[in-house]
């Protein structure tokens, strides 16, 4: 079974995020005739040769693997669009450009399984890598601005995989700042040593059983 992730900080494993991305819709051009599929996750088809049809990515990849279709590269994966995104991404130091929530996983799956259907493959691949790098650098510099007064961090347009990567750092940093900034912590410095646990004080608890 695809790795069940540790429920503590890394909420989803990378395969789990990919699993979610596989439900995104893409357009395929089948080369076979096939009746409509009435599945639990939705109804797709019927399929006719050379007539485009929308299916979830996992279905597209499955058909592609068997040589039954070509996958149409999504619009946002064109050199033109990605160049624009990369430029805009470099221009603003704080904001993220709108891209599909699962752009990392979708592009990766298409590179892996449908590379012959992607026009300008190498260019597209390097553009997406560059975009990822620029965005991740922004996330990293963003982490530096977190302080004790940070109650909310806005990350509009951050994608699923980026969320997943930054989650442990972000959550731990925010939690630490929050804990040290709480009024109880400032008013009553914790006395070390054999003092009895104070039951009345519901403030920062002594974590006797670190989990």
């Amino acid at each position, binding site marked *: *079974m*695809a790795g*069940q*992730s540790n*429920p503590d900080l890394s*909420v*989803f494993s990378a395969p*789990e995020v990919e*699993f*979610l991305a*596989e*439900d995104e819709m893409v357009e395929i051009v089948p080369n076979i005739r*096939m*009746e409509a*599929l009435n*599945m*639990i*996750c*939705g109804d797709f088809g019927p399929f006719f040769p050379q007539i485009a049809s929308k299916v979830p990515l*996992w*279905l597209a990849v*499955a*058909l592609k693997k*068997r040589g*039954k279709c070509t996958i149409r590269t999504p619009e946002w994966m064109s050199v033109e669009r990605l160049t624009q995104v990369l430029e805009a991404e470099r221009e603003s130091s704080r904001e993220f450009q709108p891209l599909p929530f699962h752009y990392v996983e979708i592009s990766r799956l298409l590179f892996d399984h449908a590379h012959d259907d992607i026009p300008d493959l190498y260019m597209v691949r390097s553009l997406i890598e560059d975009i990822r790098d620029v965005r991740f650098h922004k996330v990293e510099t963003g982490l530096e601005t977190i302080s004790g007064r940070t*109650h*909310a*961090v*806005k*990350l*509009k*347009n*951050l994608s*699923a995989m980026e*969320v997943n990567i930054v*989650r442990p750092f*972000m*959550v731990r940093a*925010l*939690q630490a700042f*929050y*804990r040290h900034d709480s009024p109880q912590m400032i008013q009553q410095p914790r006395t070390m040593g054999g003092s*009895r*646990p104070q*039951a*009345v004080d519901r403030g920062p*608890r002594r974590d*006797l*059983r670190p*989990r």
Partner: protein
Amino acid sequence: MASGSGSGSERWSEDLETEVAMAMGTTDVELLKRAWRNEKAAPEILQFEAALVLRAREQIQLLEETVEEFTENGVDDLVVSLYQMDLDRSLFLLRSYLRIRLQKIEKYMIHISKTNLWNRLSEQEQRFAKSRCTDIMEKHLEQSVLSRLPYGYQSILKQSISSEEDDMVPEPQLDTFVFCKTKHAVGAFQLDDTGDEIVDLVADDLYVLRYKSIRGLVESGRIDLV
């Protein structure tokens, strides 16, 4: 669909939500996926999606039968394998959802059984928490450690007899931060009890917020954890 920012306490009944979902063409898989994500990302256990799980199980069973029929009737292998994949994906989602809940129950069994979180469990989960978790753990701790400790330190719930409350019970950390995404505008939202921290949650926004402050929004389905 603009949700009124004034009355924050409006709560969607489950039926209504299902109806809305149907109208919007959302499948049960989509709903289950949301439940799974929320359950995975939330520090505490959420309400068990009884109706949804029941529907998902029925659909899975139905498809299992169909796939079997297909194989017997010699339907094209390709079609069968595609249905099988759909089946496996749904099964994974359902299993993982149930499993993550069991993990939480194992971790916070005493806390859950003492609070009204107990009502969020399904009947089977309650049975699991009682007989498979709490009872066995109590017996084990009793036999291996507690019975050998001096008087006053033998409680499974308290550090010592002088503790006024149960201070040895692991509780979920509600102060933790979670990543959340809005589907529709929620409006200005107060983050702190003091009221000096307000964020304006517009549609399709992504925030890192303290779970405690958005708990209500998660429970009413107005915000999704990612």
